[in-house]
């Protein structure tokens, strides 16, 4: 498949944005500036980027607790994201959601999700809405290997397959469900083989190769838009960090981490661009600087933003009822 240089550069920028945003979030968390839990997407950038490069603004995605990368790839604004990580009133969710619940309905982002496996059936619902309206929209459902042992995985894929819904199930197999390695949490190596149970296509790709992800999702999206139903795509990848920031990661070896860092998706696409004369080193450097600046601006925006008014805690529960304040 021929991928245009513009698309290559566009995807590279998205991956870099995720990498720099997450690195900043990691540092801010370490400095004690971000409250709560943070699950970083470092190392998995190629999956969200390659998948979302096939989507339009009005296509849907459902995301996970490790959602920052999906949101950025689908067009989320770094300023509102960072402000939400700080719990500020200018954040995507006015400080009510935090890292695990960032959403932007105007971009078809039906939310990150703190419940592992909850997105499968929500994605089925979004796909159902698209099919019902005959709109040609699709929904990409992102989920991890850990969630494929939840009943929702089976329920979602089953319903999507019998109704031929336009849903692309993108599994980010990073080898661990929290601390439990894949070999300890399921008796298979390739999750894509489960597609057989639903009589739908299932493929496994190198999730650290943005082009491989792009191509697999491209085919699946095109099938979905034609009414040919869902696809299961497994992207083998690895998270550079622990399950959450502060995770001691005693369950995996330094050698394993180092092996995977050699397959880091970002140097790979940089090498491709230089080798194929898509961008020169100095252009790559300029992009690094530019995105670094955007992340710094987003951080400043977040730090300069106000905390939410406490009375807002009881708003937005319903559209038409404001609960009693203290």
């Amino acid at each position, binding site marked *: 498949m021929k991928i245009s240089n513009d698309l290559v550069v566009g995807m590279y920028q998205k991956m870099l944005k995720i990498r720099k945003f997450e690195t900043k979030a990691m540092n801010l968390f370490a400095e004690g500036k971000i409250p709560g839990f943070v699950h970083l997407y470092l190392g998995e950038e190629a999956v969200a980027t390659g998948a979302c490069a096939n989507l339009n603004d009005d296509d849907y995605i459902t995301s996970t607790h490790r959602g920052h990368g999906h949101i950025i790839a689908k067009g989320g604004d770094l300023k509102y994201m960072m402000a939400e990580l700080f719990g500020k009133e200018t954040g995507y969710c006015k400080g009510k*959601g935090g890292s695990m619940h960032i959403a932007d309905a105007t971009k078809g982002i039906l939310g990150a999700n703190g419940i592992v496996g*909850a997105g499968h059936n*929500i994605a*089925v619902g*979004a796909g159902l809405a698209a099919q*019902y309206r005959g709109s040609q929209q699709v929904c990409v459902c992102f989920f991890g290997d850990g969630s494929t042992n939840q009943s*929702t995985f089976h*329920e*979602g894929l089953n319903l999507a397959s019998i109704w031929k819904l336009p849903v692309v199930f993108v599994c980010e197999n990073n080898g661990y469900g929290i601390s439990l390695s894949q070999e300890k949490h399921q008796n298979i190596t390739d999750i894509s083989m489960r597609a057989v149970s639903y009589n739908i296509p299932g493929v496994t790709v190198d999730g650290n190769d943005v082009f491989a992800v792009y191509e697999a999702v491209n085919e699946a999206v095109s099938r979905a838009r034609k009414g040919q139903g869902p696809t299961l795509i497994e992207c083998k990848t690895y998270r550079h960090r622990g399950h959450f920031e502060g995770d001691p990661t005693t369950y995996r070896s330094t050698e394993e981490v180092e092996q995977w860092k050699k397959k880091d998706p970002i140097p790979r696409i940089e090498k491709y661009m230089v080798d194929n004369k898509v961008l020169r080193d100095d252009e790559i450097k300029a992009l690094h600087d530019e995105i670094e600046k955007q992340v710094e601006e987003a951080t400043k925006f977040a730090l300069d933003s106000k905390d939410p008014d406490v009375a807002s805690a009881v708003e937005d529960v319903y559209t038409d009822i404001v609960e009693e304040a203290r």
Partner: protein
Amino acid sequence: MRKMTYAQGIKEGMRIKMLENPDVFIFGEDVGQFGGCFGVTAGMYDEFGEKRIRDTPISEGAIIGAAVGSAAAGLRPIAELMFIDFTTVGMDQLVNQAAKMRYMFGGKITLPMVVRLPAGAGVRAAAQHSQSLEAWLTHVPGLKVVYPSSPQDAIGMMMTAIDDDNPVMFIEHKVLYGLTGEVEDEVKPIPFGKANIKKEGNDVTIVTYGKQVYDALKAAETLAKDDIDVEVIDLRSLYPLDKETVFKSIEKTHKVVLVSEETKRGAFTGELAAMIAEECFFECDAPITRVGALNCPIPFSPVLEDYVIPGEKEIVEAVKSLF
């Protein structure tokens, strides 16, 4: 006026809105050609076709999840669970997704979805098909919980539920499906949070909903023979809740009995009792009294089931204990 059953009332409410708005559609187990386990959607498959009346596999998580996702994407789904007892299987989608999505996303999304929940005992369906689980649902901010008791209310409240931009848990008592009642020729939506005074009285207030409305009315007749003049309030909507009508009645009667078919421990009536104690204590001249099911699962044997769930007799005894 015309006559119809409670089941037909629910259907009529759905039909009216489906004819009005193409975004309204129904799905659930056996709701299509089969017409629903209790026949509520009978004939709708022929009228609206399989796109709008959809049979799902036995997959409650997917049913509620698909309602959440399609509502978030702009449709107005009505999902039927065959029994309220099966919410357990789809509880994450109700509690962590449907109820919280709008809030977690800073109010930037609406979830106009209705979940129909056939509930209650009395049909000899035993422990896993007879429960009254409304308190689980009223406990969760973000859900509206309503419980019509008559064909007229079923139509009007279903219309309101479908028009609501929030997730509405629409609880239906199974014993009421066959109940016939008069319905106005021109039906109107009935707003949530408006209780219905089914019988006025001066001596004691019974607050109830669902099937127990009828048990309370029978008890009121019996008690009238002893010169006890009972007021019966049908809450209709558990959240939002019409506190005003309840408090006004207690200010008049100074005695209150709270009746539901729920297992008494942790029941919604406990919440009502606490609310009255906190906000209306000095109006009461007798203990706030509750009537509910015994604290055991609903048994199968008709003899045992009738013993466990409350009825007219238990209500009469509770009221008399206050005099």
